[in-house]
């Protein structure tokens, strides 16, 4: 077997240019797969991180009717009990109780339907990092009686600046119209048009002054450990049956599915790339066999067994994988490390990306297990790739092969 491997290895380097091209194509294929995987993972993970830390929190609590009615009457049930439950739960780091309703915002330059969030600024800042994403002003820390925090996109559309006036219209629990002028105390920017353009924050005390009620429609929760959100949510739910308590994955399944979809897409892409590489390898080996039919005929004539001949060709295929695979993985690793640290600046496409909530700078990342998976796949592929050419070699007629030029 040692000699068979030796012959296979040397055969690979008889036409070093051709072999180098095959190996380079394998390395390039693996590198591109790893890079794409790292890019997609970075893109999605950053999107999720941004959403969880700036917009939605780890766990959300709503009334069981909130998703059905979605009106101002759908408030969190047993509020005091629920808040106590959260305060004493060892897994909960912080929470913020929110008033949440649809409102209409007007300025002298335009109008826009918005989601009005009434929050306790101190509590909200413990759950979300929005205060770190203020472009101007403060996080509702204003001496003004009616301060409001707006997103950059909304500010642009309604031509708002710090201290600009904006009128909000919404209804109270008795269906009375509430109309009030607020003054912009801060402008935030998270890079998600859906959030920056349609969300406004006001102090909950201000909202209570206008509605005359303490209405909480949503509680967002930050946990100490994000690895087992589902079990924390389930535990909270079991003690609070009158509300709906969901981790973000359950609350926003489209985002969670996005992660699964990305994985699936990457596996499909990887399969396509490996299949393309496989054809390249088979093609190269078939050419190589046709070129040395005579030599193979001699080997058969002098008594090499079918098994050893097959193994020799399979080893030749494996050599390509053994050299090209790790090379591609190494290049992929280096690229991931570099762009993981420096980030891949796509600000040229930033506007389009931000419309969907993605950062213009992507910090590529990959689960290290994929390096092993890619290496295994390419080795398996090259092993399989040797089967057909090896079968072709063993089907040669030794006499005809020896006579061939």
């Amino acid at each position, binding site marked *: 077997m040692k000699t068979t491997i030796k012959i296979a290895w040397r*055969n690979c380097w*008889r036409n070093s240019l051709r072999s180098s091209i095959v190996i380079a194509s394998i390395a390039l294929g693996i590198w591109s797969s790893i890079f794409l995987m790292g890019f997609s993972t970075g893109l999605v993970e950053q999107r999720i991180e941004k959403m969880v830390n700036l917009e939605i929190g780890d766990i959300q609590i709503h009334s069981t009717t909130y998703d059905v009615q979605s009106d101002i009457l759908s408030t969190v049930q047993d509020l005091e009990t629920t808040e106590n439950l959260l305060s004493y739960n060892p897994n909960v780091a912080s929470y913020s109780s929110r008033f949440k309703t649809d409102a209409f915002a007007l300025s002298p330059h335009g109008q826009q339907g918005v989601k009005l969030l009434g929050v306790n600024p101190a509590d909200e800042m413990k759950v979300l990092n929005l205060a770190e994403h203020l472009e101007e002003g403060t996080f509702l820390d204003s001496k003004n009686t009616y301060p409001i925090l707006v997103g950059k996109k909304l500010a642009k559309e309604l031509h708002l600046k710090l201290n600009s006036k904006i009128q909000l219209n919404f209804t109270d629990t008795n269906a009375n119209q509430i109309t009030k002028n607020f003054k912009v105390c801060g402008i935030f920017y998270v890079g998600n048009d859906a959030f920056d353009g349609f969300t406004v924050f006001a102090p909950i005390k201000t909202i209570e002054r206008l509605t005359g009620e303490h209405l909480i429609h949503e509680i967002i929760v930050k946990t100490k450990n994000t690895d087992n959100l589902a079990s924390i949510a389930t535990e909270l739910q079991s003690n609070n049956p009158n509300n709906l308590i969901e981790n973000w994955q359950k609350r926003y399944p489209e985002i969670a599915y996005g992660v699964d979809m990305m994985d699936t897409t990457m596996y499909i892409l990887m399969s396509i790339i490996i299949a393309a590489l496989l054809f390249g390898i088979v093609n190269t080996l078939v050419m190589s066999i046709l070129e040395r039919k005579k*030599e193979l005929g*001699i080997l058969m*004539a002098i008594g090499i*067994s079918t098994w050893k001949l097959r193994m020799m060709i399979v080893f030749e295929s494996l050599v390509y994988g053994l050299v090209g695979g790790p090379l591609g993985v190494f290049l992929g690793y280096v690229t991931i490390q570099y762009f993981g640290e420096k980030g891949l600046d796509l600000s040229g496409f930033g506007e389009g990306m931000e419309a969907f909530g993605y950062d213009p700078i992507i910090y590529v990342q990959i689960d290290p297990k994929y390096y092993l998976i890619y290496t295994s796949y390419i080795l398996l592929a090259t092993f399989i790739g040797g089967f057909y050419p090896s079968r072709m070699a063993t089907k040669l007629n030794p006499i005809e092969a020896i006579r061939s030029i």
Partner: protein
Amino acid sequence: MKKVIETKKVNKIFGDGEIAVHALNDVSIEISEGEFTALVGPSGSGKTTLLNMIGGLDNPNSGNVILNAQDIGMLKKNEMTEFRQKNIGFVFQAYNLIPVLSAYENAEFIMLLQGISSQERKERVYKLLEEVGLKGKENNKPGELSGGQQQRVAVVRALAAKPAYILADEPTANLDSTATNDLLDLMYRLNQEENMTFVFATHDQRVIDRAKRVIYLDDGKVVKDELR
């Protein structure tokens, strides 16, 4: 004398119908151990076809080929491959060494397939390479050797595994006079000293002149069998 090769009414037809060519026609020969035999005839006479039959590389349409007391018609493909490996040494016209292996590695290749120990391989190959004048060329690849040197390596490869007999198809066709004579001297000496059996398919008069038995073929038939 022990019979190592025997053919009984062997027929070989290539093609079908009107284009069928009767390459061998009821060929019956016997070759015993220690013979130095040349199969001679014009192109198309059937000498290479007969050599392929007694080399176990081709099967007859009818008749029997008995090699080393084994009717090879009874053997399966893998069994035939193993039989060739253990019993037959081949020397081909165009040397046909494995280009990626050195002279030493080419020479030991069949012994490797046979599972002979490293020490024994080394002893046999170095001895034979020295005998054929290739001492110091052990690590040269075929491309670094002359035609004559390559053919000598091919002979060493065939001999080293100690086969029952050696078949050589036009072994001198690509060699100059000096290389031809050197090669024939080597094979003749091995025949004389080791009682090694050689069968040549050739139309090289220099080979024919050295043969102890000449079997003449024409149109697929044995037309003359001359013992010298």
